């Protein structure tokens, strides 16, 4: 790789390609120049990747002021360009010290440049690289954010993407909201929004449910952000975003745990109320003790300083993390000799011109007159030729920044973050049969009949989603189940890669080869329940039947499989289901926050369900063996056995109101599926005769446990057919 010349700023020497109008003389405040806007800026370094664009630090040459320039590749998406303009329109209507300033925007080739205030302190996500924020700093940040949100919310605006990455600090510690890429304007104060948008881990339950939401959705995201600032990553960060979207509405709100003050924990709790009416407004939360006692913003310079020191101490990290520097460097060097495909190459194999020339009918002549010569084929092709040249020049200019990284004519110039997710997919980190490699098209996302979320729509869950008008909830849920147990990435803060999802690392997706860090970041485990059950060879029934130990064994195997399947479908799955769908809430109008279980717990149970379902399909007799072995194990464990024998009959009087009943209680309880128990019971005794006395009365008290125990002995009999009479003694 060529040495990175980032220290010497790139001058954009190329002349303007699009005819940009002189800006109106009255725009004194605007940084927009009159002829070629881009030539007035020197791009210095890539700061990161915002929603749908790459942000650079740049120098405005005439004023010698630093600015931030967000470049959005308009050709990269089929989005309605008018919607991209929303960001500008919203920013331009803001005048607040808590919101990044907007200076102007212009189009150059396929790229939209948005010129904004440059903030030297970096984003909160950058600063998190040096470790979590102190509580005192978080209090200041939260107060400033609330002031910013209060401004926006009063103006009828919703940011919809509050997260550490979108909170910027100035060098003096003032805090500003940035990246209005998916913000919305409410036309009147009472209307609700339904668009599914944001960043998965930070999304409020009502946004995911699409039942209509307002400014309070930002407050939820603020609560998640507060946890992110304190812990280094948002809650559930280890879970696949596809699952997270399912879990957030279904489970109790995340809680801030650890060595934090009660005020802080309560503040987070006030933000993270699932019932929107119980969630505070920005104004109300500004009166919360946690932020009332917060210090001055100047104190945040400590965090900025700490980050600087961290970066100095970890230069390797910086290289790893801050791909941007490398990217720019390479692009600059490459830009000099690498030309991006000539005209027409984007079209693939067809290069010849259309043949119009011999068509000179009267109609054409007439029409030419009407159109004032516009339609002349020569003229058209000349115009086109000129245009192609224009765009080519553009490409070359763009190339001198970053575009050279993807010199593939046939691939649309995609940038972050889709490539990351797509290339991760291709390398097989996630189940490859799922959905599509591509994110939903603009048309699909506007479909009022509903869009099934695709993997590529979510990316790594840390990047902002493109707005989706109506999510097909059922379809998406089905798809989300496919991701059950998938881990988004292995670890977060504290690994030697610094912050796992810093802008730098997603920026690295811009390079042709995937970032070296990315393959280790996530690891698919969705197949693991099945796989592990295959590799587990403790009960080798299948192999034995395969090796032809006689039709007798085969029959017994089939019976075992049938019973194994029954255990799963009639006992285990209903029991687990009963656990995560608690009985109807006595106050249907109130949100049953308190009755919902935490996400991790629900996810674990779902994985368990999924694992058993898979096992039933893969090898039900293994399930049989597994359950009997478990029963055996429980039985052999003195303490467990004694406890169960005491609790068994008393399960109904155990404080069952808690939804956190554990599995044993569930097993011991008669509640979930009484009818099935009796059926199975009679079946079992029918098959078994009365060989179940060995355990004495202990297990008898719990019908399910008893049943399973009988099954276990049945299993033993099948394993050692010769020993059938001696089985009872072998356990006593």
């Amino acid at each position, binding site marked *: 790789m060529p040495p990175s010349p980032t220290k010497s700023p790139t001058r954009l020497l190329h002349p303007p390609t699009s005819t940009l109008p002189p800006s*109106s003389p*009255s725009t004194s405040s605007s940084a927009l120049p009159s002829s070629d806007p881009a030539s007035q800026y020197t791009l210095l370094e890539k700061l990161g990747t915002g929603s749908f664009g790459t942000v650079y630090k740049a120098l405005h040459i005439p004023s010698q002021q630093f600015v931030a320039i967000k470049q959005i590749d308009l050709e990269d998406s089929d989005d309605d360009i008018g919607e991209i303009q929303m960001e500008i329109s919203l920013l331009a209507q803001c005048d607040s010290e808590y919101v990044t300033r907007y200076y102007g925007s212009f189009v150059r080739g396929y790229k939209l440049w948005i010129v904004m205030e440059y903030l030297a302190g970096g984003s909160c996500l950058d600063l998190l690289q040096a470790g979590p924020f102190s509580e005192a700093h978080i209090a200041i940040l939260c107060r400033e954010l609330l002031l910013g949100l209060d401004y926006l919310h009063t103006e009828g605006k919703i940011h919809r993407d509050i997260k550490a990455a979108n909170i910027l600090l100035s060098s003096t510690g003032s805090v500003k909201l940035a990246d209005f890429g998916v913000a919305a304007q409410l036309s009147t104060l009472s209307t609700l929004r339904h668009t599914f948008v944001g960043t998965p881990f930070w999304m409020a339950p009502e946004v995911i449910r699409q039942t209509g939401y307002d400014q309070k959705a930002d407050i939820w995201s603020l609560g998640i952000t507060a946890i992110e600032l304190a812990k280094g990553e948002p809650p559930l960060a280890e879970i696949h975003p596809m699952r997270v979207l399912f879990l957030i509405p279904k489970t109790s709100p995340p809680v801030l745990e650890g060595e934090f003050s009660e005020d802080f924990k309560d503040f987070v709790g006030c933000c993270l109320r699932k019932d929107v009416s119980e969630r505070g407004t920005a104004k109300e939360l500004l009166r919360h003790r946690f932020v009332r006692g917060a210090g001055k913003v100047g104190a945040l310079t400590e965090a900025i300083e700490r980050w600087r020191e961290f970066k100095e101490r970890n230069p390797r990290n910086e290289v790893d993390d801050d791909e941007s520097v490398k990217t720019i460097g390479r692009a600059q060097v490459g830009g000099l000799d690498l030309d991006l495909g000539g005209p027409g190459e984007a*079209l693939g194999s067809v290069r010849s011109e259309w043949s119009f020339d011999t068509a000179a009918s009267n109609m054409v002549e007439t029409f030419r007159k009407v159109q004032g010569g516009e339609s002349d084929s020569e003229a058209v092709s000349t115009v086109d030729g000129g245009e192609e040249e224009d765009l080519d020049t553009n490409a070359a200019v763009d190339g001198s920044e970053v575009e050279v990284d993807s010199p593939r004519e046939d691939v649309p110039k995609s940038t972050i973050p889709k490539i990351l997710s797509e290339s991760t997919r291709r390398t097989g980190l996630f189940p490859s049969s799922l959905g599509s490699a591509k994110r939903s098209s603009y048309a699909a996302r506007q479909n009022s009949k509903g869009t099934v979320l695709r993997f590529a729509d979510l990316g790594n869950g840390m990047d902002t989603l493109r707005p989706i008008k109506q999510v097909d909830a059922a379809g998406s849920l089905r798809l989300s189940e496919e991701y059950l147990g998938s881990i988004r990435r292995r670890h977060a803060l504290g690994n030697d890669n610094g912050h796992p999802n810093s802008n730098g690392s997603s920026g690295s997706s811009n390079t042709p080869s995937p970032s070296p860090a990315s393959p280790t970041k996530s690891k698919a485990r969705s197949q693991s329940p099945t796989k592990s059950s295959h590799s587990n060879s403790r009960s080798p029934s299948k192999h034995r039947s395969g090796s032809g130990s006689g039709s007798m064994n085969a029959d017994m195997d089939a019976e075992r499989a049938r019973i194994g399947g029954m255990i799963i479908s009639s006992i285990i799955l209903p029991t687990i289901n009963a656990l995560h769908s608690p009985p109807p809430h006595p106050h249907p109008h109130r949100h049953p926050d308190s009755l919902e279980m935490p996400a991790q717990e629900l996810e674990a149970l779902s994985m368990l369900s999924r694992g058993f379902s898979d096992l039933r399909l893969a090898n039900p007799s293994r399930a049989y063996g597994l359950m009997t072995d478990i029963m055996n194990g429980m039985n052999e464990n003195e303490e467990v056995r004694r406890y169960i024998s005491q609790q068994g009959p008393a399960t109904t009087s155990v404080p069952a109101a808690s939804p956190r009943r554990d599995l044993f209680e569930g097993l011991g309880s008669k509640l979930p599926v009484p009818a099935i128990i009796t059926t199975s019971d009679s079946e079992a005794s029918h098959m078994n005769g009365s060989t179940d006395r060995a355990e004495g009365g202990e297990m008898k008290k719990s019908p399910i446990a008893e049943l399973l125990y009988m099954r276990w002995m049945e299993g033993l009999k099948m394993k050692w057919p010769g020993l059938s009479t001696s089985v009872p003694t072998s356990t006593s």
Partner: protein
Amino acid sequence: MNFFKAKQRTPAELVRGLRDAIPRLEAGQPGSETRRKANEEVTRNLGQIKAILYGDGDPLPELVAQLAQETYNTDLLHSLVLNIHKFDFEARKDVSQIFNNLLRRQIGSRWPTVEYLTAKHDILFATLGGYDNEDVALNTGMILKEMLRHESLCKILLYSDKFYSFPHYIEDTTFGISCDAFANFKETLTRHKPMVAEYLEKNYDRFFMAYAQLLASSNYVTKRQSLKLLGEILLDRANFNVMTRYISYEANLKMMMNLLRDKSKNIQFEAFHVFKVFVANPNKPPQVVAILRRNQAKLLAFLKDFHNDKEDEQFTDEKQFLIAQIQAL
């Protein structure tokens, strides 16, 4: 803002105060005390008017009625739109909000503000003229958008020569304003379909001549957006007659075929959606058939490789249909 603590002034007083202050915005030297005070006065009055209209979510109908009447009687709205560029940042936003609140005002089936504006074309045109000034273009654009929701106002704009200043506003402004102007251009052409269809039939030549300029724009955004809008207009059922006329001209076909080969994938794709209509037309005029036939082999090769990475089923079907049609020529 604590104007509720101040003695509540009547709508008439507020409107008068505002109207009196506006001329003083340019009295005396720039930056003079007079101007500064006038600006404060404007901002304060607008704030109070807005408070009456929005009234913390619960406006008093009687006050609103008085206020509305007062604005009609004094032509306040016209004055606001003409002078908005002289106002403070927040005051400009208030103008949009006040204007749009009044525009949404409905009494039974009547829209008093719309009726008022229908009789005062100048206000509509002055609002459109806001695009001349980059500083206020987004504020006036918002008002224009609200106006265009109403067919009577939309029709006035469409039938006036002023409508043809849209291409200029779209081409010659910076991105944010250009997009806003385009959005309102599109609104004018798509919201009230039968009215627009009638207009397009009557003014076919003038309209499509102007439109061809947009399609030939050297600005990628303009070209892409106008091509997409063209597809929407032509494929709308209401515009059937316009569509059949459009696809009978071979010049239009040539333009689309050239755009199919544009460097931008998005422009290619939008061009496809217009091009397909020429091919699908069961009554293709001979000169259109001639062009297609002359390019038959090239078109077939071209379409075979055209956007094969798209997962859009409908697109794939349409492409196959076109290939079959061209083969059968």
